[in-house]
């Protein structure tokens, strides 16, 4: 499956593994924070609607 990379196999595979890991972590963290903040905002907006108007 993996092409014959010869004597540079370690270098090429480690470059791909580290890069893909960093990209995956960045995407995952961005999605996770997006979800958390959206949920917190929805909760805060719901509380704001329920609160009596003091103005």
């Amino acid at each position, binding site marked *: 499956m993996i*092409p*014959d*990379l*010869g*004597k*540079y*196999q370690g*270098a*090429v595979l*480690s*470059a*791909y593994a*580290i*890069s893909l890991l*960093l*990209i995956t972590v*960045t*995407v995952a963290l*961005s*999605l996770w*924070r*997006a979800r958390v*903040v*959206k949920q*917190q*905002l929805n909760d*805060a*907006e719901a*509380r*704001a609607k329920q*609160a009596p108007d*003091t103005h």
Partner: protein
Amino acid sequence: MSIWKYANPTQFMRTTRWLLPWLSALAILSVGTGLIWGFFFTPDDFRQGSTVKIIYLHVPSALMAINAWLMMLVTSLIWLIRRHHVSALLARAAAPVGLVMTLIALITGGIWGQPMWGTYWAWDPRLTSFLILFLFYLGYIALWQAVETQDTAADLTSVLCLVGSVFALLSRYAVNFWNQGLHQGTSVPVATGGRTVSDVFFVPLLISMAGFGLMFVVLVLLRTRTEIRARRLQALLARERAAS
């Protein structure tokens, strides 16, 4: 139709909501195609062997590391001149993505450099300016975190971004200024159009570059939407505290 209407957070959220799924699909498709084509279906270089396959990660990430900072420069200038909050948040959202792109460029460059140059690192003009750019990204992110007042943080980080732009440009053109470095000149010169890369390597490289560009746009839009929501959340929480 004016571009400034997207400075309105509501308009920005509305537009990016339908744009993001399409851009995400395009980014996944192009990054996947570029990397799979480059890794599995390109031959070894007659001089560099299989290490040439690192080009599909190294060049696109280095390109985006510089372009991310230049995009931050533009949005920072817009903030300083026109005071549009979305532009400041775009710069803030782009910084961590640019940092990761710089890190990938530095790591893959080191891994590629070891078998080709005999060393992971040299104090070469391009490598050194890239390391400084990496430190500027760290400083920029830390400054946003350190200053509590959002507008003041946006002002200070915008000034830092202007200063760091010197190194972003230097990392692109360093090989033209100094000849003593190990790093080669660009293989795909945009200005002259003459390139030294064969089509068999260039086509997947081009797709990979487009993919990394799209991935950057998707991540920045997603993160900017989060920053806009976080700012609205802060305002609501402050109102709750004031009422209690």
